[in-house]
């Protein structure tokens, strides 16, 4: 692939970023997670702004090198810069519809949209769709996930926290 003139350039990189997966949820891309804020190209340097989901996420460095590796394959690119930014802050509302569907297929319930922390957080089982679920542990295998149990289909599952 070669760098094209004009506005198409950024699209090329956005498309490639669709192939960079969240290392802890390989079913979903970083674009679908809403973690890519901006892609800009200046001469032969590509800059990508990434919004971390949780700040203490240990996967950030892995994501960074995956992006550098993927975008670096484009002919004519001399350098790929990845910057983690906090403005705008990542929110679970940024996860796209297709991202939500893939999370569910992967066995992770999506966070509700426009959720306020004071409100009860109703979580539907990603396997059977039942709301008859209980919170087992607010903190799951990663800071951004919780562990729940479905009393209907009797499966444990994970849910992504609304933030």
């Amino acid at each position: 692939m070669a760098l094209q003139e004009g506005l198409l350039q950024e699209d090329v990189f956005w498309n490639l970023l669709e192939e960079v997966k969240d290392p802890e949820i390989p079913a979903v891309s970083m674009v679908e997670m809403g973690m890519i804020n901006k892609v800009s190209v200046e001469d032969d340097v590509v800059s990508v702004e990434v919004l971390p989901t949780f700040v203490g996420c240990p996967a950030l460095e892995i994501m960074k090198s995956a992006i550098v590796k993927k975008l670096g394959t484009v002919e004519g690119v001399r350098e790929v810069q990845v910057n983690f930014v906090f403005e705008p802050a990542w929110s679970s509302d940024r996860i796209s519809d297709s991202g939500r569907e893939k999370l569910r297929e992967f066995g992770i319930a999506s966070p509700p949209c426009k959720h306020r922390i004071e409100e009860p957080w109703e979580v539907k089982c990603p396997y059977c769709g039942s709301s008859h679920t209980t919170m087992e542990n607010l903190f799951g295998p990663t800071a951004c996930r919780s562990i729940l149990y479905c009393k209907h289909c009797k499966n444990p599952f994970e849910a992504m926290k609304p933030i």
Partner: protein
Amino acid sequence: MVSSLRIESAEQAMQNPEYLTALKELLFQVADDDFILAHRGSEWLGLAPHIEEDVAFSSMSQDMMGHAVMFYEMLEALGAGKADDLAQLRKPEDFRNAVLVERMNGTGDYIEEPHYDWAYAIARCYFYGLFKEVRSESLANSSYLPLAQVSRKTMTEHRYHMIHWQVWMSQLANSTEEARNRLANALGKVWDDIGGLFILGPLAASIVKHGLIEGEELLTQRWLEKAKKAFDTFGLTWIGKPKTPELNGRAGQHTQELADAIDTLSEVYRLDPAANW
């Protein structure tokens, strides 16, 4: 706060030596508090009361250490040195954390006969957490824009930590007499040190003058309101306003417990600081 002041980048901050000094001092306080308490939390791994708590506590400690990393990286951008070096190669007297966070988890050693105090872990994390809420809310309006942005982000994550500790506080407070007694003892121990959190250190005046954060009195007052309300909610008897502790961590005064903690946490890093991880 001086509301007119607005510094948008490290480069801009570095053009004003007085501002830079105050900013770095404050950042060390914020970073070191989170870093050392996260380290203490990590020492509970494998020792928490049950497996779910092990997962939750280590997850929260990791998240809090992530917050510290951001603050150290902010210091790196301001020319204070490499973030990893700041965390692991400084001398104890260069640390600016409050003494509360450096206290050991209990008697005994992590490896040999750890007699750790679970009530103390909960009381410390919960009331430190209330302070972190107060501090982050103030930092969210800091004159240093990168700090304000990061603080807003950490607040959304910290809420989940607080929900977790709140459940534990309520469980211990409403449990058996033994649990209540242990909690009361733990709160007494926390109260001996917690006043040190509200101190902004020798450069307090300059920190406040430059609009980096609000003053000690305001922060203390807001924390007191939250703490009193919490005692009420949990049905505990209010123990009064904490006194100012003898050792001022913000001025580099610390216990041997901090020196030992730094020795432990930096042991591998010091073997070969140039190694790639």
